[in-house]
């Protein structure tokens, strides 16, 4: 019970969620992550129409992480409620990640789906016209957040890109738009080239870095957002063990999400939970004690 957390009203048995886009396209896979111990699961980002994504290669290893340019493949919200419903069988909160090209698209999608919360993906670094092209513009972020808030009753989270000069200004825009929380960070812009041929490796040429390499970037974003915002921050980026999760919470994350590390170890949610529990017990700390601790010392 030590790890129970409430985030924007959602009760979580632990603060470790499955991140968006990770095993998130099917109800069955979301359910599996929940059964593996996730406190909540976030779906793949869902759009207005079915989308095949970028051509392969769409993911490649880089030092301490991965580079991906999936291109937001998704079956569209019209085919997605049944997946959410299947995921709901696991009895953990299911958060629908959604994306669109305009406030109207975002609210059309959110309005049509039934989920425990919505995560607005305005931060994919490699989807032209969607994603980061929206998430770098405070006005658009505020407008979209506001539109979705008006369209749904569930909590609305806004997922931020680190690929901006000042992430706080985007977080503040989300907050003004009525967001219940922000999620930081989406992947970090990057690229890899095959030296045997000169070809950019990804089908899309460039993509987003995830995994351990980006953890310090994410920690800094969470730290800054915690200072700047009144709404909670959910941390994501490079978590691969319980120590990383603790570091995020100390930086100011109310809860965390885990993405890339799920590939090697889908049981990471329960592994982290039990180690974090043991750590807190040994230190005689509660989750609340360590929440934002780096700001107090």
């Amino acid at each position, binding site marked *: 019970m030590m790890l129970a957390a409430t985030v924007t009203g959602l009760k979580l048995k632990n603060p470790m969620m499955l991140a968006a*886009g990770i095993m998130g*396209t099917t109800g069955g896979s979301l359910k599996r992550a929940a059964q593996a111990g996730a406190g909540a699961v976030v779906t793949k980002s869902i759009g207005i129409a079915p989308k095949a994504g970028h051509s392969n290669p769409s993911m490649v290893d880089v030092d301490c992480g991965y580079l991906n340019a999936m291109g937001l493949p998704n*079956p569209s919200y019209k085919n997605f409620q049944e997946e959410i419903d299947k995921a709901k069988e696991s009895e953990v909160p299911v958060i629908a990640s959604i994306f669109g090209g305009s406030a109207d698209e975002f609210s059309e999608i959110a309005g049509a789906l039934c989920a425990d919360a919505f995560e607005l993906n305005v931060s994919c670094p490699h989807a032209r016209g969607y994603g980061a092209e929206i998430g770098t513009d405070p006005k658009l972020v505020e407008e979209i957040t506001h539109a979705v808030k008006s369209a749904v009753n569930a909590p609305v989270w806004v997922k931020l890109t680190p690929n901006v000069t000042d992430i706080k200004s985007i977080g503040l825009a989300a907050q003004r738009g009525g967001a219940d929380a922000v999620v930081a960070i989406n992947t970090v812009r990057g690229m*890899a080239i095959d030296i*045997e*041929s000169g070809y950019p490796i990804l*089908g899309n040429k460039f993509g987003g870095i995830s995994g351990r390499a980006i953890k310090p970037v994410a920690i800094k974003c969470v730290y800054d957002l915690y200072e700047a915002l009144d709404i909670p921050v959910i941390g994501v980026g490079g978590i691969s063990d319980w120590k990383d999760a603790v570091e995020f919470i100390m930086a100011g994350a109310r809860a965390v999400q885990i993405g890339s590390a799920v590939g090697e170890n889908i049981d990471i949610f329960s592994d982290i939970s039990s180690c974090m529990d043991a750590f807190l017990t040994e230190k005689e700390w509660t989750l609340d004690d360590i929440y934002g601790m780096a700001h107090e010392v």
Partner: protein
Amino acid sequence: MKPVNAVITKVVDETPTIRTFFFDTSFELIPGQFVMVWIRGVDEIPMALPYENAITVQKVGPATSALFELGECDSIGIRGPFGNGFDITKGRILLVAGGVGAAPLAPLAEKAGSAGVEVTTLLGARTNDEILFRERFEAAGDVRIATDDGSEGKHGYVTQLIEDSKKYSQIYCCGPENMMKKVLDMVAPSKAQFSLHRYIKCGIGICGACCVDGLRVCKDGPVFSGEVLKKTEFGVYRRNECGERVRF
């Protein structure tokens, strides 16, 4: 890992639609594992490893056609091997291959055969000149053939060759999913292993594109026991690139 550069050293025409591309790099593999083959500028697609230094490709669309344009000295990028591979058992085993599904089964037949396992292979193809790796299976044990057009062996589906499946300690199967589904329905699920084909994007168990319910074909598979598959969407529907369900 990043794609390894593999230079093609030899191209063998196996059938009118299937070619084997040998390259200058070898991979330690468990039969049934696969690699991601990057045809630069075109696509990256999953392929079984029928040898430790080759892939055997059926031409079906843009990427495989682009592969067919390549010859000696051309190069491709290879990530892998990925996935679990077949769980090799002792005793008497039955292999059931449909079309290019023979690719991952051939090294299994060889490995089992040379370990003293009694291997029987049922080989199915559209027509007799499309039969793949017949010699490799014959060298490892008994082979029975079925062709859709009756040009050789049984006229009909390879599944029609299955009889008395109980006498085998394990059954290994790779081919079109509806063929594999038929096999699953005919044998004891706990004694059968199936190598699945699903749309593979990341290949490393992260994106979820390949999921059969909660199972990742690229990471938890591509080989699954019939027992596991029984409870899933296997044979009922697959997912296309968008993640939409497509019924068989």
